[in-house]
Structures are given as structure tokens and as C-alpha cells.
């Protein structure tokens, strides 16, 4: 295929992809916001350009792989001892990520036009969307760890803006703070990890830019690790420790245990944001970081059997399971999806952690499309029901009261108010079904390919507790199928349980993006399909082909990785998933009273799921009942009582007459005269005393 531009030129202009959204965000805030149409066109138009450009980059790299990695670095802070730089790196990994980010961003921006049309903050929303896109793309093209940290925090703050977008709501404001502070805890670890890593590789960098990911001359992370290992400043144990500390960053950003608590609350933000930031792109940044800085997580000699990766795999595996159990009992449609995101991100970490680099990134790629679509579907439902339930003010108020007081969920997001929507919203229903099947790992949809690859890599995995990890993932696959179909059946099947009557759905700017995203949700898995490998599997021949064609343009190290298909594992996980779907059918369509039975006979387990394993309660108790009161007490004791009094007392005593003088108006002048003459006197006296005695 011929590209319309020279491949070198396409890559040379890559910085535009980052710069333009920032510029658009800035001008929108500074004045363009006055025109809603201009804000929207500028923002969405830029994103369309970024989308095309990223696609061209991907194609250019496909055509001529020798073009990557290409990078440019600019000095940002230079002193004689170090050089921090910012730059743009273009390679396969980054190109894939850029395509994901720009595609989802583009569709979300189109969708926003429909979803936020009546909101007074419409233009502001577009400005934030642009700023987010710029930050996320900046993170994607980062040439070094430091730059990634820089944009890492910027995407975090955009997320904060957008979660708290409806600032009138206290819950939204609190969720925003929670997201930012929890992420700050992660960033603290990220920062400490970077500094520890720098300290261990101190003599290596010289005047080269610090912490570069890849460099033809070898002044990059891998080179630094080799050097430090040869110098003895870095051992396998210390590298593993550094990687674990640094992993706090991905833990927070990608909502992994125990820093996962912010993501469900982040659903307070408008739904387009949940789709873009809290499902498809930003939360995947943690996976991207681990993939980018993979050498740090390996052993110093480059093996994937490292303690660092084992930690990643285990955090991911446990999170995948815990989040799936929580999703079983939630009633807020957005939160069900949020917990499923947490769970799926866990899968991706297991992929990276067990050495299946390609599979982890592949799942990120597929998940971005179907999860974005699922969220946009939920938005369409919420939008639709919002209008349906608004029969008149009284009904709406009653609904609001019941929902918000007793259930803490807005009525239009509550699964208990839905049901039977398939007849009112056929387009959304089919899209949602595609997404649900895909995430459940239904055969031959995109989620099936990547998820099975991760499960099979956990099967092959030889690290600590590999059997448990494998079964954990298989069980989670079953749970995933169950809770996703639970949400699907509760929403679309049975009788409508909410107030008012929903209108019939029309083709609109809200459901067009859903249809567009349904295609990659079905098909993106085939990018990784390799007929050769399938043939070998079916004929029972010894596997020689690469299982995942995706690996052609996305691999770590110098050759595409070899990840064979495993028929047994595929069969196991597929059967478990189908069982999950079947169970959901029995419970929610055939009305098997499993739900009430669980509530009555498995109360503690049900509560564990319902109360999200009590993480929030523990953290709240820690800050509200312990940390703040202790701070208050200690501060009052030390600062107000001891320090202030001791220092005040001594100084007031030293300058005894000060107190008396301050009460008279004239006193000020006198006091000042005293100070002047006093100091002159002291100068003279000390000078006299200081004379040599001779």
C-alpha cells in the first residue's frame, strides 16, 4: 500500500500529535469557549487529525520497521551533573497505543456532542478533553521515565478535573480528591522508584539524557541496568525492590489492589469520561509503563523470571479476582463496568508479569475498544432513562429521593430501575451484547483471543504459586461472564421497572459511535490471529509459528516473542465462561432465587462483595479516625503549646520591655528608636570586645 506522504515525514511531524491537543485545550479555556460550536469543532477536528496521523505512523512503521524507534530529545533542566529532557519517541509500541488513544478519543468527542449538549459546561468539557488527549499522547510518546512521570501526573489531573466536572455535587468533588490523592500515593512510589533507580545507576548517564527508554548507543534503561549490575551497585534483589516500589505508580493509575479504591468513585464524572479515561486510555497507562520500562521489571540479565514480574503478576491476579467478586453484587451500571475494568486491568498485568508481553498489550488494545463501547452504551442508557424518568418534577423527585437516600445511586444508573430496554433501545442493546460477549471471552470475539492468551501464559508460568494464579484467572473468567450477563439481562430483558416510559431509540450522534466501536470490538482480535498457529494446533503438529500475529509489531527485545496456543487451556476457560453465562441466564431470566439465597445463607460473603471488601471503610477509618485526629493533637501540642510558648517566652523575656511599649501609639516610634540605638550599641560593644587584647 502506498502512503500519501513519505514515511520519514510522517514520523518527523509526530510531535504535532501531542502539541495540537494542548494548544486547542489552552485556546478553548482562554476564549474559544464562548462559542460552543467552535469549541466542539476545534477539539473534535484536532482529534480527527491526530487519529489519521497516528494511523499513518502505524502504517509507516509496518511498511518500513527500520524507521523506529525514532526519537528527538530537548533539554528541559540541565546542570553540570545531570540532564533531564523531554522528547518524542516513535516506535511500534507507541504507535499502537496512539491509535488506541486517538480512536477512542475521537469517538468519545463525537459522542460528547450528543451527551453533553444540554450542559452549561459543554465548552469547558471539550477543553478538558483536549488537554487530556494531549497529556495522554504525551505520556505515550515519552522518551524517558522522567517525562513519563511528568505526563503521568498531567493525565491524573485531567482525570481530577473531569471527575469533579459537576462541581456542584459534593460526591463528585470528593471522588475527584480521592482519585487524585490515591494517585499521589502511587506517584510517590513511582518517584521514589525513579530516584532509587537513578541512585543505583548514578555513574552511568554522564551528560546523556537521564532514563531514556531506548537508545541505539545503549544509553538506555537496559544499558544502565547492565552497567550497574557489572559495577555491583545493582543486584537482582535491589532491582526487584526498585521495581516493586515503582510499581506503586501503575497500581494507583491502573487501579490495582490496594490502591484501586478511586476508580469506582470516579464514575461520578460524566459518562464519556468514564469511557475515555477510566476505561480505555488513562487506566491503561500503568500497563503501558510496565511495558515501556520492562527492563526494570526483569532480572539484571534480562530474564522474565524475576521477583519484580512475579509481584506484578500476583497483584494483577488477585485484583482481577477481587474486583470480579465485587462486580457480582453492584447495582450501579457504571460501577459494574468500573469493577470489570479493574478486573480486566488485572488480567493485563498478569500477562506482563508472566512474561507474555504481547498478550498483555494485546488485551489492552482489545479491551480499550469494547470497554469504551460498553461505557458509551451505559451512557446512552442513562441519557435515555434520564429523559424517560423525567415525566414530571414530582415523579422525578420521588425517584431521586428513593435512589439517593437509600441506595446512594442516581435512579437512571440503577439496574433495579431498568429491565426490558431491548424493545426501546435496540441499537444500544446489540452493541452492549457484543461488548458483553467480547469481555466474557465468547469464542471468536476480540476479548476471547487476548484473554485466553493471558490465561495460557499463566498456565505455562513457572513462577511462585503458578497453579493458583492460573485457577484464579479461570475462575475470574467465569465470574466475569456471570456479572456482565447479569448486567445485560437486568438492563435489557424482563419488564421495565423504572418510572415513565422510555421513548423509542433513534439513530443519533449518541449511538453512532457505539456502532463504530462495535466493529473493532468484534474484529480487533483478528489482528493477533495467526492461521498458521491454529492449523498447527488443530493438526497436533509441534508449534513453531508465533501464536500472536500482533507480536509482529509489538514485542519486547530484539525478536518477536514466541507464544504458542494451548488448546486445553482455551477449552477450559471457554467452558467456564459459558457456564458463567448460563448461570446468569438461569438466575436472571429463569428467576432462580440464587440471589436471595446468597443474601440469606452466605451473608458474610455477600457483604464482602457488596461492601467492596471493606477497603474504603478501612481507609476512611484510617484518615478520619486516626491520621487527622493524631495530626491535630500533635500539632496543637507541639506547635501551639510548646514551640510557640517557649520561643515566644524566651524572646519576650530577652527583649523584656517590648510588651510594655507596644500599647502606646508613641511606643512604636520609641520602640524602633530603641532598636536602632540598641543595635548600634551592640555593634560598638561587640567590636570593642572583639579587638585583640594586645
Amino acid at each position, binding site marked *: 500500500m502506498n502512503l500519501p506522504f513519505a514515511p520519514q515525514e510522517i514520523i518527523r511531524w509526530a510531535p504535532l500529535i501531542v502539541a495540537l491537543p494542548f494548544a486547542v485545550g489552552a485556546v478553548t*479555556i482562554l476564549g474559544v469557549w464562548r462559542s460552543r460550536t467552535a469549541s466542539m469543532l476545534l477539539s473534535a477536528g484536532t482529534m480527527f487529525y491526530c487519529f489519521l496521523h497516528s494511523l499513518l505512523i502505524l502504517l509507516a512503521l509496518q511498511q518500513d520497521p527500520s524507521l523506529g524507534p525514532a526519537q528527538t530529545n530537548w*533539554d528541559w*533542566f*540541565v*546542570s*553540570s*551533573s*545531570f540532564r*533531564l529532557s523531554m522528547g518524542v519517541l516513535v516506535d511500534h509500541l507507541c504507535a499502537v497505543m496512539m491509535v488506541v488513544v486517538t480512536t477512542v478519543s475521537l469517538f468519545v468527542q463525537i459522542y460528547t456532542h450528543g451527551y453533553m449538549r444540554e450542559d452549561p459546561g459543554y465548552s469547558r468539557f471539550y477543553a478538558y478533553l483536549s488537554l487530556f488527549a494531549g497529556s495522554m499522547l504525551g505520556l505515550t510518546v515519552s522518551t524517558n521515565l*522522567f517525562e513519563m512521570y*511528568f505526563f503521568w*501526573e*498531567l493525565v491524573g*489531573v485531567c482525570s*481530577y478535573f473531569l471527575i469533579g466536572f459537576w*462541581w*456542584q*455535587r*459534593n460526591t*463528585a*468533588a470528593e471522588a*475527584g*480528591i480521592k482519585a*487524585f*490523592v490515591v494517585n*499521589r*500515593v502511587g506517584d*510517590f512510589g513511582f*518517584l*521514589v522508584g525513579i*530516584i*532509587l533507580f*537513578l541512585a543505583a545507576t*548514578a*555513574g552511568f548517564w554522564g551528560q546523556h539524557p537521564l532514563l531514556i527508554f531506548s537508545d541505539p548507543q545503549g544509553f538506555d534503561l537496559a544499558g544502565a541496568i547492565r552497567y550497574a549490575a557489572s*559495577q555491583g551497585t545493582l543486584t537482582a534483589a535491589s532491582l526487584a525492590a526498585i521495581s516493586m516500589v515503582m510499581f506503586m505508580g501503575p497500581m494507583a493509575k491502573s487501579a490495582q489492589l490496594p490502591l484501586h479504591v478511586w476508580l469506582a468513585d470516579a464514575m461520578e464524572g460524566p459518562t464519556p469520561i468514564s469511557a475515555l479515561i477510566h476505561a480505555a486510555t488513562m487506566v491503561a497507562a500503568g500497563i503501558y509503563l510496565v511495558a515501556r520500562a520492562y527492563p526494570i521489571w526483569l532480572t539484571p540479565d534480562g530474564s522474565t523470571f524475576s521477583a519484580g514480574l512475579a509481584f506484578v503478576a500476583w497483584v494483577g491476579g488477585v485484583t482481577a479476582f477481587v474486583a470480579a467478586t465485587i462486580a457480582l453484587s453492584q447495582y450501579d451500571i457504571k460501577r459494574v463496568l468500573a469493577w470489570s475494568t479493574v478486573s480486566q486491568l488485572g488480567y493485563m498485568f498478569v500477562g506482563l508479569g508472566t512474561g507474555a508481553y504481547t498478550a498483555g498489550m494485546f488485551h489492552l488494545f482489545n479491551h480499550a475498544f469494547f470497554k469504551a463501547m460498553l461505557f458509551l452504551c451505559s451512557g446512552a442508557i442513562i441519557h435515555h432513562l434520564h429523559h424517560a424518568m423525567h415525566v414530571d418534577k414530582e415523579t422525578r423527585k420521588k425517584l431521586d429521593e428513593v435512589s439517593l437516600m437509600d441506595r446512594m445511586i442516581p435512579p437512571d444508573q440503577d439496574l433495579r430501575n431498568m429491565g426490558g430496554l431491548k424493545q426501546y433501545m435496540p441499537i444500544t442493546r446489540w452493541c452492549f451484547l457484543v461488548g458483553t460477549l467480547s469481555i466474557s471471552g465468547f469464542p471468536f470475539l476480540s476479548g476471547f483471543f487476548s484473554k485466553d492468551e493471558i490465561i495460557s501464559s499463566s498456565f505455562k508460568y513457572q513462577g511462585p504459586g503458578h497453579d493458583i494464579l492460573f485457577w484464579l484467572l479461570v475462575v475470574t473468567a467465569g465470574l466475569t461472564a456471570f456479572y456482565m450477563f447479569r448486567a445485560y439481562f437486568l438492563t435489557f430483558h424482563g419488564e421495565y421497572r423504572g418510572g415513565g416510559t422510555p421513548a423509542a431509540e433513534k439513530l443519533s450522534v449518541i449511538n453512532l459511535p457505539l456502532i463504530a466501536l462495535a466493529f473493532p470490538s468484534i474484529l480487533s482480535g483478528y489482528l493477533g490471529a495467526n492461521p498458521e498457529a491454529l492449523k498447527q494446533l488443530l493438526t497436533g503438529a509441534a508449534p513453531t509459528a508465533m501464536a500472536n500475529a500482533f507480536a509482529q509489531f509489538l514485542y519486547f527485545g530484539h525478536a518477536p516473542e514466541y507464544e504458542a496456543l494451548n488448546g486445553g487451556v482455551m477449552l477450559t476457560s471457554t467452558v467456564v465462561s459459558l457456564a458463567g453465562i448460563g448461570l446468569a441466564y438461569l438466575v436472571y431470566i429463569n428467576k432462580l432465587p440464587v440471589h436471595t439465597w446468597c443474601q440469606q445463607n452466605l451473608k458474610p460473603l455477600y457483604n464482602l462483595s457488596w461492601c467492596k471488601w471493606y477497603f474504603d471503610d478501612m481507609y476512611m477509618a484510617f484518615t478520619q479516625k486516626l491520621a*487527622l485526629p493524631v*495530626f*491535630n493533637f500533635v*500539632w*496543637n501540642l507541639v*506547635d501551639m503549646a510548646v*514551640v*510557640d510558648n*517557649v*520561643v515566644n517566652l524566651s*524572646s519576650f523575656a*530577652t*527583649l523584656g520591655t*517590648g510588651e510594655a511599649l507596644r500599647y502606646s501609639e508613641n511606643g*512604636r516610634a520609641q520602640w*524602633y528608636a530603641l532598636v536602632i540605638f540598641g*543595635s548600634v550599641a*551592640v*555593634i560598638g560593644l*561587640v*567590636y570593642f570586645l*572583639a*579587638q*585583640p587584647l594586645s
Partner: protein
Amino acid sequence: MGPEHLLTALLLVPLVGTFAIALSPEPWARQISLWLGAAMVVISALLLANFNPALAGMQFVEQVNWIRWPFPVDYHVGIDGFSLALVALTTIVTFAAILASKTVGETRPRLYYSMVMLLTTSILGVFLSLDLVQFFVLYELELVPMYFLIAIWGGPRRDYAAMKFLIYTFFGGIFMLAALLFLYYQLGQAGAQYQTFDMVKLATVSPLLAKQVQLLGCLGFMVAFLIKLPSFPFHTWLPDAHVEAPTPISMILAGLLLKMGAYGLVRICMGFFPEALVTLGVGLMALGAFNIVWAAMACLVQGDMKRVIALSSVSHMGFITLGLGSLSAAGLNGAIFQMVSHGFISAALFFLVGTVYDRCHTRQIKEIGGGLARQMPTLFYFWMLATLANLGLPALSGFVGEVTVFYGSFMSPVAMLPAHHTFVHGTIIFACTGVILSAGYMLWLLKRLFFGPEQERWSGHLTDARGWEVAVASILALFIVGLGIYPMALTSQYTPVADRMTRDVQARTTISLRPSQVD
């Protein structure tokens, strides 16, 4: 007038202004001081244009002998990249503060603006002085206008706050004076030819003094500067002074006055007494780290929004102590950046606190109750920006200093000493928890002021930013964003100086280092 007299011109503008305003009619005072403020900004721009950043020495030097007996005192000014950065900061923040004095300056404008000019003279003088006695006099001169500015235009407890400020600072001044004379006397012991108050010469001769002498001298100066900085346990004057001071004066106090202490620490404690700093480095780092966390913790339990910002200043000045104590090039570079960046950020924050106070007439966060965003959307944007800058968000200036200080202190030669290794690294990781706390208290403050449903008692009573308020906030925001995106604009001016100073100190470290790890 050629560039060689620029510094004298810069000092004369506010000094002449002090008297000119005092003698002019009341309604002219604001106009005159605005023009003078603009003139100072122009002069500092000229300085920047004529400055050669490649040189680590003093430039634009002017020296006139003033007193010969009993000791020589000169009028001696000059700047290097480090002082230039602070001079530029001073002129810009002063201009912003004058602009922000619109309402405060309505009572007794002549006296008010004249005092502001005197204050500016003193601050600029400190950054420009190359004679130690002149430095001391100008350093102490600041007390006079500051005392009156708080005591006349301040809040309800202004007398107490002004007196407390005076006593604390004066207490420090005595230590500085004693140290100054001690230094002069000790140099005399070494030989009459060494006896001088010339700061350029002092930087070369005083490092030759015996270690014990350096230690004593350094401690004397250090007490004075740590009080001004301020640092635990001398920090309690700051919240009181800030809470009572009027808004523009808080801007100057946090943005500029604190930097005098920081400047002294670097120029004098580090420049004159490198040997002492090698000993005191670990202690300074620990003190800095403690300040960062302690003050951040205190911010979480304040009920008064101005106190939160004031204590957050203490926390952020801890970065300077930490970076300085690390004795590493990155640490010092970061500390200097932090001085400038904090100058803009704290000025912006105090100004914004002032805008809310002007409208709600209370500083108690509980009484304000939230929901201000509805009636004050523009100010909300500026608040958000300043808040994020203060919590160290990348692309805003606060981030640069913090990150380089952390990096520098971790790579510090002090930490290479086996006895200190674990302690120093532990200290820095402890200090890093400050980034979590600062996010917590700043966002919580923002939430309690601006987020949430509109309060009934404020509806219809509040106005959004007026023209001059937008101007003040925009000036400061411009620098906060600009320095955050491209810090090289500033660092390229002072890096040679900072690098040379740390090299000098490190040359004296008795710690044996692996050559590859010297930072």
C-alpha cells in the same frame, strides 16, 4: 546611562520613590508607585538582556568607598545569575503586589505606598549587596516598613502579629550581627590583609578559616536565616504575621521576604563556610525534610484558609533547606529554582486568598462553606491553577524545584558517607510523603471553598474577578506556567553559579567518594 549603573538605578528607583510618594498628594500615590514598579521591571529586563550567563562571577559591579574607620564599609553592588533570578522575581512580584494594593491602599495611600517602596528597597538591596555591612543594614531595614505595614493595615490581631514578627526577626538579627563581627575579628587574627567586609573577597578568604571558627560563624548566620526562612522551631511567627497582614503585604512577605533567608543561606552560609556546611549538611537535610512533612501535616488541621497557605509556605521552604544541605549540584539548582517558583506561587495563592476574603469577609473555611465556583468562575480557574502549582503538578513551576531537590538530595555526597547513608535516604523518602500530604490539603481546601452546592448566604452577594484582579493573577500565572514548561529559561542563568558553589563545597568534603558517584 550605560549598563554599568543599572544596579544603582534599580536601587534608587524605590528609594527615591519612598520619599517622592511621601511628599506627593494622596491621590497620586498609587499612580506613582505603579509607574515605579513598572520601571523596576523594565530595569530588571535590561539586566537580563545585558547579563552574560556563561560567567560564574559578579557582573554590573559598582563599588564606592563609604566609611574607612574603624572598619571599611563600601557601597558595593553586583549580581551573578543567582541574585539576578531573585532580583527579577522581586521586581515582578512587587509590581503585582502594588497592582493588588488597590483596596488596601485606599486608607492612607501616601504612607502605604511609601512603605512598600521602602520595603522593596530593602529587599532589592539584600540581593544586590556585595558588602556584608551593607547587606546587614538592608536586611534589618526591612523590619521598619514591614512592622508598620502589618501594624497599621493589618487584621484584628495586628499588634500582636507585628510585634511577634519584629521580635523574632530582631532576635535573628542579633545573631547575624554577632556572627558578622566574629568573622571580621577572626579574619583579623589571620592577618590584617584578610580583614574585609567585601563579600566577594570573603567568599575566597573565609573558607580558609579553621573548621571550628567556620562552624561558629556559620551557625550565627544560620540562626538568622532560618528564622527568616522560616524553619522549625522558629516558624510560628509566620502564620501569625500572614494572617494579620493585608493581602499585598502577604504576597511580598511570602514571595520575597522569605527568599532573603534562603538567599543568605546559600550566599553566606554555603559560600563563606563550606567546611561548616559539610558538617551541618546532614542536619540541614533532616531539618528540611522535617519541615516539609511537619508543616504539610499542620496544613491539614487548619480552619483558617490563610493559615493553610502560610504553613504550606513553611513546608515548601523546607525544600530549600533540603536541597542546600544535600551539597549536590542538582540539590542546589533545585533549591534556587524552588525559591523563584515559590515566590510566584505563594504570591498568587495569597492574592487569591485575599480575593475570597474581600468578598466573604471571613477566612474561616467552615463559614465560607463551599460552592463559590458558581459566582466566581474566573477566580476558580486561577485558584485551581495556583493550587495545582502548589502541590507540585508537572508543567507548573512548583514541580521542577521539588523533583530536582529530591533527586539531588538522594544523590548527595553526604549520603555517600556510610554512617549517614541509610539515615539520609530514609529522610528523603520521608520528605517525599510530603507530596501526598500537599495534594491532600490543597485539594481539600479547594473543595471546601469552591466545590459543592451554592451556599444560600452568598448567593447574589459575590462578584467574579474584576479587571485588576485578573491582571494580577494573570501576571503570576504566566510565570508559573512559563517556568514550569520551560525551566531552562531560568536555570540557564544561574546554573554556572550553583554548580561552582557546590564544586567548591564538595572539594572540601573529607568523605572519600567513588569518582563515578560524585554528583
